[in-house]
């Protein structure tokens, strides 16, 4: 048995209001999320002795965010730090928190993120590449990397834009059942097809939102978690992997590291794709979700297009995904809300959007220019 399997737990989750919140800041949203997660866990602030943060795109203190946040909420942690891996950060910090409490570096670690990207302007349109930036050729913005993936997937496997639309439509349907989601009006495949091009082959409705909001997740040992307020959510498996060679690695476009991250998480938890009741798959763009199905063994390489058809990924289907709406429709919290929803599904507290009997949830994260990936298996205790 893997020594980290089921040794740690998510005991508190909290999210601030999401959307466009002009009088808030990245910091104030993070603080509100922290307070709500504390309340959710039943822990007192004084019990939080670990603090891991991700600075938002609008946090001026950048990687010193842990100092700014810690000072604001009056914590002097035994273990702390900030990490910047875009959408790969939430999962990476969750894992770091699990390792820290398992090692005894801290007893209760709060993982925190806040951003005012909708109000404060965004940095999501910057060019990739160092030195001679690819912007010389007009290659810029997060959407472009995922469009590269989508275009090649379509060319190699015959994947269609309508299949990408299935993912957008499913996420929106789930958001329609989530009172806290930003975009709740259901859409159709035709709406998706008629939405304007952003970076072709991706339409507007293939793209995530840009949002203000904060999220906090509190982690402790499984043993301590039994004394907390809510039903036990065990961290059963964890995996991370990275491809930092964008241009040098031929299959970079296919994010091969995602498969490694998933394999490690499955192995630690001793589960496989057939055991997953519900999945929260990182969806910065619809095309990102396709590749998760292939790397996670839910379908064969190249077959994720047909896989998402026919309601399979909607509530009531074989593998409901992004049951709160995801980055595409709930709010763009760079994957932090995927962990929150994963914990809530396993607890069984999702009301109308609850996957009946959900005991095992896969949560994935990815970030930067297709560089960072992580996977977590949450399991009902």
């Amino acid at each position: 048995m893997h020594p980290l399997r089921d040794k740690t737990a998510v005991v508190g989750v909290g999210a601030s209001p999401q959307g466009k919140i002009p009088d808030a800041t990245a910091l104030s949203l993070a603080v509100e999320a922290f307070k709500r997660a504390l309340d959710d866990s039943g822990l007192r602030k004084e019990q939080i002795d670990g603090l891991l943060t991700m600075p938002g795109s609008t946090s001026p203190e950048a990687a010193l965010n842990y100092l700014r946040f810690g000072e604001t909420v009056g914590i002097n942690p035994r273990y702390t730090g900030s990490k910047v891996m875009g959408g790969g950060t939430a999962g990476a910090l969750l894992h770091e928190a699990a390792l820290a409490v398992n090692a005894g570096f801290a007893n209760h670690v709060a993982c925190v993120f806040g951003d005012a990207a909708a109000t404060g302007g965004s940095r999501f349109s910057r060019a990739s590449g160092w030195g001679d930036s690819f912007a010389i050729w007009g290659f810029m913005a997060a959407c472009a990397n995922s469009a590269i993936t989508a275009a090649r997937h379509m060319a190699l496997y015959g994947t269609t834009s309508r299949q990408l639309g299935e993912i957008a439509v499913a996420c929106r349907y789930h958001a329609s059942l989530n009172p806290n989601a930003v975009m709740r009006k259901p859409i159709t495949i035709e709406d998706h097809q008629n939405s304007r091009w952003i970076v072709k082959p991706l339409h507007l409705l293939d793209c995530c939102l840009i949002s203000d909001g904060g999220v906090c997740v509190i982690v402790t040992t499984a043993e301590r978690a039994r004394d907390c307020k809510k039903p036990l959510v065990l961290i059963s498996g964890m995996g991370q992997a990275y491809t930092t060679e964008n241009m040098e690695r031929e299959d970079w476009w296919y994010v091969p590291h995602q498969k490694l991250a998933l394999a490690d998480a499955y192995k630690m938890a001793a589960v496989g794709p057939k055991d997953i009741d519900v999945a929260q798959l990182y969806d910065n763009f619809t095309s990102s979700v396709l590749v998760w199905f292939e790397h996670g063994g839910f379908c064969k390489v190249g077959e994720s297009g047909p896989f998402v058809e026919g309601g399979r990924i909607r509530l009531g289907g074989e593998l409901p995904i992004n049951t709160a709406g995801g980055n595409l429709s709930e709010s763009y919290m760079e994957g932090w809300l995927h962990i929150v929803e994963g914990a809530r599904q396993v607890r069984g507290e999702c009301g109308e959007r609850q996957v009946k009997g959900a005991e095992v949830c896969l949560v994935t994260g990815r970030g930067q220019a297709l560089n960072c990936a992580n996977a977590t298996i949450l399991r009902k205790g």
Partner: protein
Amino acid sequence: MSEYTKPLPTITDENREFWEGARRGKLRMQKCRDCGHIRYPISHCCPKCLSYNFEWTDLSGRGEVFSYVVFHQLYNQAFKDDVPYNVALVQLEEGPRMYSNVVGVDNDAVKVGDKVEAVFDPVTPEVTIPRFRLRQPAK
């Protein structure tokens, strides 16, 4: 010709050979003197064997479209007269891949797998940008 306002490289000792090559109509990249790996992006160090020894080598300029996207969204005002414009990830014959544009045809005329060859676009007196055009199937 109006002033060129789109992003330009900052020519440094590290990248000068690439941009001087383009001015002379040659696509040039760094080849490791120890392991022979041809690398891109430009770097002082071979990502395969970590050697600092390299030479600049002329490439054929031929390759094929590895992936291909068309920017409709305007992310940088300097491109406002260009949208929609294409960006191709080009697989070069000698191994490296690079981003560039396919010129001389409609955006819809290009697809993944198409054979391309480098052409050189002098945008300022100092900078010539390597781009690509479709190779005729007969060639």
